[in-house]
């Protein structure tokens, strides 16, 4: 099969991560990096030996990508995805699918109308620890699942224009980060019936965000999801699934397969502990390989754009609950074409 040409829009953190993934894939040509910050685009493009762009039309005209990979801030997803779809490019787009359900539905519609695929990068489904946990539940080994606990977070993210602090753009830790766990839990336990949440939103969200979300699934499973951007540093995830026949625990801190401490040198500070959980193929690369294979074979992806829409719906319900102080009941009918 001939190589597929990919261009990445957005040379921030995820643009770097995705470009690393593509560079390791034999059947993909990374044909361009676009960022409205010319220097950022040039830096990433140079490191991956590809072309830098600042203009979408120019990129499409000159690089002729088959796939546009969207790594821009959440609130800009729609405009980039619509442009990519109208150019006939398949789309891989970072999570969350969008900041609003309206935008998400418009993106799904635009890609359908253009006859291109839309994949949303809910990478947690490609992390082996989460995949193993999902399969353990699916095998029935847990018995009847009762209570699930998920935790994700660390320091407040820093990014272009500090867009994470803007609730209208990022949707707080609940939309940006906890959506990973909402998607994972939906994958394991099906649809959510009721959402109740508490967070820093509306209190004093000054680069210190923390949230607790209580989910009740239609099948009766209850889940506690904790998301934080309140730690002074670091990043960690935790998962616990308790059932009538067994319990599964995962803590990223304990899964560090190696941990190093280095003496101070001219270039580094002393005593910084570097924990690692190394994998031959990163979960990000695994995810991108899967999407590329789906484009080539036409198979249904492990996570669909509709799944991403449903995860966003849970995040937004949690935000609403924080703001109203009341639980939010989700309805089965909230599919993408119910407007």
């Amino acid at each position, binding site marked *: 099969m001939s190589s597929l040409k990919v261009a990445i829009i957005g040379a921030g953190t995820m643009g770097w991560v995705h470009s690393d993934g593509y560079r390791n894939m034999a059947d993909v040509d990374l044909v361009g990096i676009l960022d409205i910050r010319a220097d950022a685009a040039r830096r990433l493009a140079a490191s991956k030996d590809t072309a830098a762009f600042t203009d979408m039309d120019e990129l499409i005209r000159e690089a002729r990508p088959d796939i546009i990979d969207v790594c821009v801030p959440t609130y800009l997803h729609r405009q980039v995805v619509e442009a990519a779809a109208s150019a006939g490019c398949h789309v891989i787009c970072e999570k969350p699918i969008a900041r609003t359900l309206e935008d998400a539905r418009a993106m799904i519609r635009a890609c359908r109308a253009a006859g291109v695929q839309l994949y949303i990068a809910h990478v947690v489904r490609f992390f082996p620890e989460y995949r193993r946990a999902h399969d353990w539940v699916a095998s029935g080994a847990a018995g009847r699942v009762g209570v699930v606990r998920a935790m994700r977070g660390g320091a407040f993210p820093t990014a272009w224009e500090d867009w994470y602090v803007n609730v209208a753009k990022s949707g707080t830790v609940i939309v940006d980060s906890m959506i990973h766990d909402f998607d994972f839990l939906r994958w394991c336990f099906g649809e959510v019936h009721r959402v*109740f949440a508490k967070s820093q939103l509306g209190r004093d969200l000054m680069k210190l965000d923390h949230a607790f979300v209580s989910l009740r699934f239609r099948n009766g499973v209850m889940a506690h999801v904790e998301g*934080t951007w309140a730690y002074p540093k670091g990043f960690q995830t935790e998962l616990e699934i308790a059932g009538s026949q067994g319990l599964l625990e995962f803590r990223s801190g304990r899964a560090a397969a190696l941990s190093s401490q280095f003496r101070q040198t001219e270039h580094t500070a002393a005593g910084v502990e570097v924990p690692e959980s190394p994998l031959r193929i990163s979960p990000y690369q695994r995810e991108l390989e899967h999407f590329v294979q789906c484009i080539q074979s036409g198979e249904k992806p492990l996570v669909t754009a509709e799944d991403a829409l449903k995860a966003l719906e849970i995040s937004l319900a949690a935000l609403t609950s924080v703001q109203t102080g009341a*639980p939010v009941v989700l309805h089965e009918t909230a599919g993408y074409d119910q407007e």
Partner: protein
Amino acid sequence: MTKQPLGIGILSFAHMHAYAYADVLKQLPNVRIQAVADTDEERGRKAQAQYGGDFCVDYQRLLQREDIDAVIVCSENARHAEMVLAAAEAGKHVLCEKPIATTVNDAQRMIDACEQHQVTLQIAFPVRFSTPLCRLKQTVEEGRLGRIVAIRGTNHGQNPGGWFVDPVLSGGGAVMDHTVHVVDIMRWLSESEVREVYAEVDTRFYDIETDDCGLLMLEFENGVFASHDPSWSRPRAYPTWGDVTLEVIGTGGVTQVDALAQHLDVYSDRDGGYQHAFFGDSMDAALILDFVDCVQTGRMPSISGVDGLRALEVALAAYESAQSGRPVRLR
């Protein structure tokens, strides 16, 4: 003249914590277990043989003894009230197992009676005496966490069976059993009262009449928000009975506490596979020492009946919220 030893009576061994408390009391030089009362005669006589003193089936007889200064009430939750009321009337100081009672009305009557008869009423929240949690309290008081933003708690366990799963005697399952410790700690740390409670409560692990799992979401009067998981969700294969964990998120940092983290991992083909062997300080010992000191010096109890009542209110509100599907406003 030598000082008279402090005379203690134990009212019921229905709650297994009675054994832990009696073990500590037995070690203390200035304290004597004078009598044990238990409606379960076999259980009571066994305890008497283990800890000394006299045995009686009727706790009223125990309360009439002049050589008893204080009693420890470890009966079924729903029987706390009658025993504590009788003890107060008999002028005995009281250490009452948690939860203080199964209804707000009972709890209030217990508090009023002890006040009226000028006896100490302390509620057995030993977690306040856990050395790691005391260190957390110190960290908060020193201001190192800044202002508290949120607190996450868990107090997981296993189904204790017996009267714990009889709603008439226990007043509720996991949520009744495992909410009050951590809510008490959250009140202690935040120095604020719970204003509102939302909860999911259900029975999903065992075939029992009470609940066995729940998730609580709390809002304190000072704006701190919190969550708590009191579920009996540990399987039999778990290496210990459960956990007590707390995470405090502050403007100045984050502290995570695992009250049972000080353990050895023991893998034994002889004794039940993988087990935790706890080596930290005993919180039960610290609780009993505190109670004894409180009675001997006449000072105010470290953990009052009102503390017990406030924690009970939250557990009861959790049940109410789960019933209605709405948050319950306490104040």
